[in-house]
């Protein structure tokens, strides 16, 4: 505004016609307007990126908190299954094993893993699936099963889950 006024007065004193003055002042005003618009767009862009980053950080933090809670729950389920198997309560062990499987499926779906980690979880889910089939048959069809085989898988599951928990809590690589 000040620059435009200054330019107007200068051109007026120089004896330029009103049309010339308006044209020159208009051009300068447009140029400044354009610069201001560009600066505003850049400012909005920076704010937008910062907002996106903040949303992503919050989301990641939320997912991490839920994941740690899921892993703690999965570890508790494993301990329960081991206890039920110890007392040959196959029906309860079967129900809890199914809960564990669903929890792990959700955990795997919500995370991005390194290839070898994903493979570990996929193998674990397959093993738990096999044990579920056999526990069901043990309960309802009197199938003879080796509990030691299931315990071996559960022990392996504990190792994988604890490693994932450490990784999420402390950022410790596996």
């Amino acid at each position, binding site marked *: 505004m000040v620059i435009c006024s200054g330019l107007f007065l200068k051109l007026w004193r120089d004896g330029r016609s009103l049309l010339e003055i308006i044209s020159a002042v208009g051009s300068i005003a447009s140029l400044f307007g354009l610069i201001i618009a560009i600066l505003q767009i850049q400012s909005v862009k920076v704010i937008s990126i910062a907002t996106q980053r903040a949303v992503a950080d919050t989301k990641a933090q939320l997912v991490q908190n839920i994941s740690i809670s899921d892993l703690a729950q999965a570890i508790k389920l494993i301990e329960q299954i081991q206890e039920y198997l110890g007392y040959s309560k196959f029906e309860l062990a079967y129900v809890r094993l199914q809960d564990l499987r669903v929890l792990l499926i959700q955990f795997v779906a919500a995370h991005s893993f390194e290839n070898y980690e994903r493979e570990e979880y996929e193998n674990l889910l397959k093993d738990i699936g096999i044990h579920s089939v*056999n526990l069901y048959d043990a309960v309802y069809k009197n199938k003879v099963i080796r509990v030691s085989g299931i315990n071996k898988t559960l022990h392996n599951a504990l190792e994988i889950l604890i490693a994932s928990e450490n990784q999420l809590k402390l950022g410790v690589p596996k």
Partner: protein
Amino acid sequence: MIAKHEKLIVDLLQKTETGAAKWEPTDSESQVALKLKKGVILLDKQRLVGASGHAADYRLTILDSEGNVIERIRPEGLYYREKTERLFDTAKRQIAKIDDKLAEIIGELDELR
């Protein structure tokens, strides 16, 4: 039995006999498992006791990669029942490495004078 089930049994037997399919033991003595990338195939041998004596019945259970049961197959007809029986025996022999051990024993016998 649908055509896909028949093909599955034939293919499994062929891949097992060539050694391409590697079976594993499970927590059940009467079961073998073939773990693949897309899922698991379980093969169970069940003993049936009837008035005329004992008989074996076989059942295939297919799990997806998340461990969900997606199909149960009971082979029908003498041809497929025999193929499944051969599949189970071959898988068991493979797990116990019977053929390798036999080859070693035969090799040792050949060296005897």
